[in-house]
């Protein structure tokens, strides 16, 4: 039974369209955004940010593969941009973690609700 479902999926795979990728990406983006907005822990907020970045990456690659943006057909531009994003995300994570470390040193907490000095 299971094999049949698996086989069904495999059979369906060639039928995967751009819309499916975009749906996955949107779900991932929404989840990331949800994480950013609702999590109290700064680390969790950063993780949400990573999700949002990866949602964007999926979009870039999807458009790159199924695109039609170029007259000559699909190109590698999106994939290159995704690789840039991944590099930048790594750098961002490093800096963001350093900031979180500093926040912790200063406020003795990583709870973003308690750090609202931007208000002043």
């Amino acid at each position, binding site marked *: 039974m299971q094999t049949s479902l698996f086989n069904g999926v495999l059979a369906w795979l060639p039928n995967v369209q751009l819309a499916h990728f975009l749906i996955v990406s949107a779900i991932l983006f929404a989840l990331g955004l949800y994480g*950013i*907005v609702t999590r109290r822990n700064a680390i969790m907020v950063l993780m949400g940010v990573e999700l949002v970045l990866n949602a964007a990456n999926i979009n870039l690659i999807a458009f790159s593969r199924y695109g039609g943006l170029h007259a000559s057909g699909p190109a590698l531009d999106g994939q290159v941009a995704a690789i840039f994003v991944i590099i930048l995300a790594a750098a961002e994570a490093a800096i963001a973690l350093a900031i979180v470390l500093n926040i912790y040193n200063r406020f003795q907490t990583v709870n*973003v609700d308690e750090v609202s*000095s931007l208000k*002043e």
Partner: protein
Amino acid sequence: MSADTLVTLSLAVLLLPLAGFVLMMFFGKKLPRQGDWLETGIITIALGIALYVLFQKMTTFAGEVGSLRFTWIDFHEVPGIGPLKIVLGFTIDNLAAIMMAVVMIISTLVHYFSIGYMHDDVRYSRYFGYLGIFTFSMLVIVLADNLFLLYVGWELVGLSSYLLIGHWYEKKSASNAAMKAFITNRVGDLGFFIGMAIMFTTFHTFGLTEIFAGLQSGQMPLGSESWLTVAGVLIFCGAIGKSAQFPLHVWLPDAMEGPTPVSALIHAATMVAAGVYLVARVFPLLTADALMVIAYIGLTTAFISATIAIAQNDIKKVLAYSTISQLGYMVMGLGVGAYTYGFMHLVTHAMFKAGLFLGSGSVIHAMHGAMHHQHDHHTDPQDIRNMGGLRTKMPVTFWAFVIYTLAISGVPLTSGFMSKDGILAGTMAFAGFTGHTLIPIVGFFVAGLTAFYMFRLVILTFLGAHADEKRFAHVHESPKVMIIPLMILAVLSVFVFYSWNPLDASHGWISQALPRPATVVPEHLAATEAAEFAEGVHHAHMPAMLLSLTVAGLGIALAFATYYWKKISADRIATSLAPVHRFLVDKWRFDELYGTVVVGGTLALTRALNWVDSKIIDGAVNGAGWATRGTSFISSRFDALVIDGIVNLSAYLSGFGGLVLRKFQTGKVQTYVLFTVASVLVLYFVFRMV
């Protein structure tokens, strides 16, 4: 020596009393006897010089006129006025020389008399100083050869009379009398000033000689002949004030509040004479019409004051009204054209009126002394009803007084007879030429009245029995320093000093020295020509003399019949004619009339103006204030409500906006992100719709 030397000597006469005044004012109190000897000595020296000048003028320099002139100010050509140059000067002609001598004689005798009369006065030295400036002021008028300097002297006389009438200024009546004299004079002075201004506008000079020359060349003041008459009458207005002519005569009786020697000075030489002197000075420019006005003013004055004099009981008041009456005579004499006799009456009157006043001063002095001895401070020492019988106690005063009275009544062998007779003959001649018969009729009537009231005065004062026997015992003759001036004046009231012929003065030295000056007005405006008039006077002389003797005799007889023999009861006449008597006692109610009309009118006017001020002007001001307050209130409300409301509303709105927007500013990045997402979604849908 020339005629100009006489001017220099006259200047010495002029300046000596001024020097006396200055010395007395600054050092008088520190000198022994408060300096009366100094002032009197100075005046005596001046008298000597004045008499010498007169003698020289009459003998050696007859016909020559000396003068001294200097330019006072010179503004050259002034836009709108023309040449503005004022030349002042002094001149000594026959008129000035005679007048100066008269002034100095009277002034000197008054000075000597005052030593006795004022000997324990509180302001003894100041009194003598004032006498000095009074004499000086009068001499300025006498010697001035132009209207300007004359006006200066004119005002100085007004000032010094004010000072002397108000000498006992602690008495309210005295200070009031001084003010009355000054203010009443100012009314006349205004006319004089305007007349002077008219002359200056036309001729650009104040010099009388130049004005006469201008008129003679046919130039008319302000280009019209009627202005000449007007100017003449206006200048005469000054004389109305100073010489106490109707209707400005009211100040003179009140001036009796001054010391009695001052009254003598005012009435004889230094003040009231100024007006007559002024008319004599400007005589050539007076037209026939102006002279007619002058004659009638003089006539009215003479009549009114003679009737008042009958009913007065104060010895000085009687004399005051007789002075006004005699001044009326002089003015009338000048007005009818009897220039020589009009002025001669001024001279003779000066002598016997000064005598009468000094005599009355002597009587008052004696009465006052006797009352003082009895510790009687209530009886009036000047009331003739309290006197009587003084003849035996004061023989010198009595006899001198009788001589003066004979002179003023116009009895032959006195000086007054000659001058008064001349004036009356002049009025008769005038009536013959012009037909104005009222003038001689009233003239003779007043002559009779004068004789009557003067003898009434003599009888009540010196004859009969004294009112109070005890007081009578203490009456004494005045000291020598007072009675010697009386004797001198009595001698000067005799005819020989004025003319050798006691019945006709037309050949006397004064008549020869003072012929009527030739007129300078155009022929058709001029009064009867001098030679023709003199002829008329000559013809009128005999009937005038007989008539005046008759009326004087009648007046004297009536006075004796009434007051000495008591054949006629004065009281019964007074009661049967009570309204008339009351009217005369009240001095024709001039004071009441002026009090009501002038003073009351002024007060009413000021009250009206005060009302206008307090109601209308203040009302307008207050109304403006009220209106301003109202509008400012409105505008303050507008400010507070509308303007402030707008400002506050905008502030409130900003605040409210801030309050709302502050809610979004949480400081939490997560919230911001939420907002961003929400906004993006909103924008997405907004753009979807578009």
